[in-house]
């Protein structure tokens, strides 16, 4: 049963991963990527990581919904009504990718993998939580800082008017130069 599930999910994951770069339509490519990543989540669930599998499902669904919006905003031909190719150096990339895959596959089959040591705890999620709030606290704090830095930098990058636009290059303007007057004390 698990074997059938593994093979179905694996084939679907790789096939829809390939289709991401073959579809003309951006929306279809996004949902193809969603299918692929949901299959990845399925494999993670199959391996017994219940919580993380569900997290991946939820995260990817929302992420791909946002991605579809950006796709339609920025890209020509969002509906795929005309065929298009926007690729460069296809042959070189194919050679590199096949080479990397062969290298990895040889490594996978030749590596002396250690045997299974121990067995999973009764509550895998509890184990993860206790680890993140205990011995792996530094990892968790680093991730938190990275996420916070991402919030700040994405706002800085995406904003149209920064403080230098409002208050001049030396930030010493008497009044801020806003398209709409108002706000506190202006």
């Amino acid at each position: 049963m698990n074997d059938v599930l593994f093979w179905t999910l694996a084939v679907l994951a790789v096939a829809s991963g390939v289709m991401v770069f073959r579809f003309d339509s951006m929306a279809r490519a996004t949902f193809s990527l969603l299918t692929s990543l949901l299959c990845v989540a399925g494999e993670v669930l199959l391996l017994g990581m219940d919580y993380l599998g569900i997290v991946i499902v939820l995260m990817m669904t929302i992420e791909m919904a946002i991605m579809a919006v950006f796709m339609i905003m920025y890209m020509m031909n969002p509906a795929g009504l005309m065929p298009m190719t926007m690729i460069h150096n296809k042959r070189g990339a194919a050679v590199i990718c096949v080479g990397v895959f062969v290298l990895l596959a040889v490594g996978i089959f030749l590596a002396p993998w250690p045997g299974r040591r121990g067995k999973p705890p009764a509550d895998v999620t509890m184990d993860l939580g206790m680890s993140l709030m205990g011995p792996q606290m530094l990892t968790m704090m680093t991730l938190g800082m990275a996420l916070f830095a991402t919030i700040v930098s994405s706002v800085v990058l995406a904003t149209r008017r920064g403080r230098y636009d409002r208050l001049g290059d030396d930030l010493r303007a008497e009044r801020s130069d806003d398209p709409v007057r108002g706000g506190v004390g202006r």
Partner: protein
Amino acid sequence: MSLELFMLLGAALLCVGLFGALTQQSIVMLMMGLELMLGGVIVGAAAAWHYIAPAAPDGQVLVVLAVTAMALEMAIGFAVVTALFRSREVDMTDMAAELKE
């Protein structure tokens, strides 16, 4: 099901994603390739946890790390595309490189 098969699946996803990241000209499509590559990493990490050291939670922490990397890449990627599009009206890597010169 075995460790090798899961690793092979991870490698396949990584290579498909690498192909996309190398060939696609559109920045958003390029980011899709990166997402696929990280998907491969997640499968590999989960398999390593399950088949090598299920008693230690470190494998799960690795998956958390990969998932976070996915989210960060996505957010920063879209912010960069927005900034680039606003200043130069481009959404392709080649055009962005040309205009720099």
